[in-house]
């Protein structure tokens, strides 16, 4: 269940996603995928290349540019015995399908007194610095994390991309999975054999005793980079990846913070009312009597993502900012 120690085989993040979907589609004939340019085109990010050749256009379904419509179609199919993966090309476009995701998919099971199920996966992206500007760069996972009835997964690398996708597909509840679009070509060890990653179990990516850095998705790599810099100045950072924002493994993060006495939370969503707020306040509450300094948060800058590279790069948390903030935190108290 944790990252394998011997790297038998390396895949890119994109390949890991594709392998997870392909394996689950082979295993379970109820699984299908629906979205824009997913079939012959294999998705604009090329993540799905080859799937239509294996599974045909009946199970890899190209749609018109109708996010609300095909999201709703996914919900209906999920309620009646299928297990759809609904592909929303950019995370920014979930804005168009929020009624179907939030008022329908998330609530049907509860509203029906538990009789109807909606085993659906919404797969979409997050992450800036692709020079795509304000409507193609958002990380909106805080929204769906807020909604009872949804589960939310944020794979931080190829291993997680495969394992969390498989868990998502097998889950009987709606899951929204955000892939970091800047990481599709990142390589990492991915077992060829079947495995899943349990939801709600954080992983310690790096052990340390001086400060806890909780980081999600794209920010795990940033945090690990910062941890290296911190090590050079004698600060041992423990880096924790919650892997799912709901269910959220609060205890793991609280326990770590109790041990280190300091905590920093890093996430690529807008900082204000973002995922960092929930995690930071959970740690601040749960580890209150053990903290030597306030819990700090770093999210994306609270601005629409600018196009100009010189500005865009300023908006996302960097190794440098994480390093500086952690260093300052460790000086305190």
């Amino acid at each position: 269940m944790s990252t394998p120690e011997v790297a038998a085989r390396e895949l890119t993040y994109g390949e890991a996603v594709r392998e997870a979907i392909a394996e689950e589609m082979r295993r379970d004939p109820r699984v299908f995928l629906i979205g824009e340019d997913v079939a012959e085109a294999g998705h604009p990010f090329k993540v799905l290349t080859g799937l239509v050749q294996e599974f045909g256009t009946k199970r890899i379904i190209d749609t018109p540019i109708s996010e609300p419509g095909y999201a709703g179609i996914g919900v209906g199919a999920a309620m009646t015995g299928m297990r759809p993966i609904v592909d929303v090309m950019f995370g920014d476009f979930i804005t168009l399908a929020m009624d179907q995701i939030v008022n329908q998919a998330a609530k049907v099971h509860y509203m029906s007194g538990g009789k109807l199920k909606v085993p659906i996966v919404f797969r979409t992206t997050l992450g800036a610095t692709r020079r795509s500007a304000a409507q193609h760069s958002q990380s909106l996972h805080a929204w769906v994390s807020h909604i009872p009835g949804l589960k939310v997964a944020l794979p931080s690398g190829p291993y997680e991309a495969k394992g969390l996708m498989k868990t998502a597909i097998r889950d009987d509840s709606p899951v929204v999975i955000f892939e970091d679009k800047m990481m599709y070509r990142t390589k990492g060890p991915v077992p060829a054999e079947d495995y899943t990653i349990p939801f709600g179990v954080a992983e310690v990516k790096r052990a340390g005793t001086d400060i806890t850095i909780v980081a999600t998705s794209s920010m795990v790599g940033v945090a690990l980079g910062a941890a290296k810099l911190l090590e050079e100045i004698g600060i041992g950072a423990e880096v924790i990846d919650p892997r799912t924002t709901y269910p959220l493994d609060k205890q793991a993060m609280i326990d770590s913070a109790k041990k280190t006495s300091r905590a920093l939370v890093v996430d690529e969503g807008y900082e204000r009312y973002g995922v960092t707020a929930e995690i930071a306040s959970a740690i601040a509450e749960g580890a209150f009597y053990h903290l030597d300094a306030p819990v700090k948060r770093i999210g994306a800058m609270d601005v629409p993502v600018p196009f100009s590279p010189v500005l865009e790069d300023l908006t996302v948390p960097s190794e440098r900012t994480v390093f500086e903030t952690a260093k300052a935190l460790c000086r305190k108290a």
Partner: protein
Amino acid sequence: MTTRAIEPRMELEANLHMYRQMAKIRAFDEQVNELYKSAKMPGLAHLYIGEEAVAVGVCEALRRDDLITSTHRGHGHCLAKGAAVNRMFAELLGKEPGYCRGKGGSMHIADPETGNLGANAIVGGSAGIATGAALSAKMRGTDQVAVCFFGDGALGQGLLYEVMNMAALWRLPVIYLCENNLYGEYTPCGETIAGDILARPRALGVHAESVDGQDVQAVHATMRRLVERARRGEGPAFLECKTYRYYGHHVGDVNREYRTREEEREWMSKHDPLETLASRLTTQGLADAGVFERILTDVKAEIDGGVQFALAAPYPEPNEVDQDVYA
């Protein structure tokens, strides 16, 4: 099963069954209004009275395993598809034996056993669900048909056009059932619908027809055709049923300033679905007044029993509140 020709006696029985179903819906919603007025029902409800021929004509053309999605004005759809009166009332009162254990209420009654995927409080919100159910039926290789009920108001929702387009592209077995009762809440539909209603689905490649929604036989006959068509794989259809709600938008809307009493009288006196069917069968010498009276008496007993059941039923236990959030 629904294709074979119906014998005359069977036909009478089928018609009397439709009458009974309509009478049940009417009596049910009259009782709902009473529950509201006597402050026994939490919240509001949208009465289906006046529109009974639509739900009954449609659902009698469906198999039990065919699927429907319903609306905020959904009691008629649920009952016509086979829901039991007692569990319906229990749901409306927020009681544990209700169809949704009291968690859904009037606007969310779902009953998978009778193929009811649920009412929906988002106008037009179930258009995708019904279309997805049809896609699912096709993928699973069943010959189920899905029916999406919605009001004229839902014609304002873009989602409907998105999914009709896909249903046409993929020849899905789904029927878009527009209950045009002339108003969306307090606004006449002439102020909200430009152009031509039937031209809309047609422009998207969806076969479209219109029928007198107060004539249960006409609705039923039309639906049988459209359902068979869909079952044969000939693709989606759109059926506009012209109808009228006798009461206000919801139980609390009693003044109804947005329409005239004359208009209401006209519909009630000349286009009542129960009257229309009863007088036709009587004129044809197939039934007499006694038959209908007996039905009404039966129905009344069923409703009375149902509401007593619901009133006596327990509320869900407090610890149910956070159950069934996740499957």
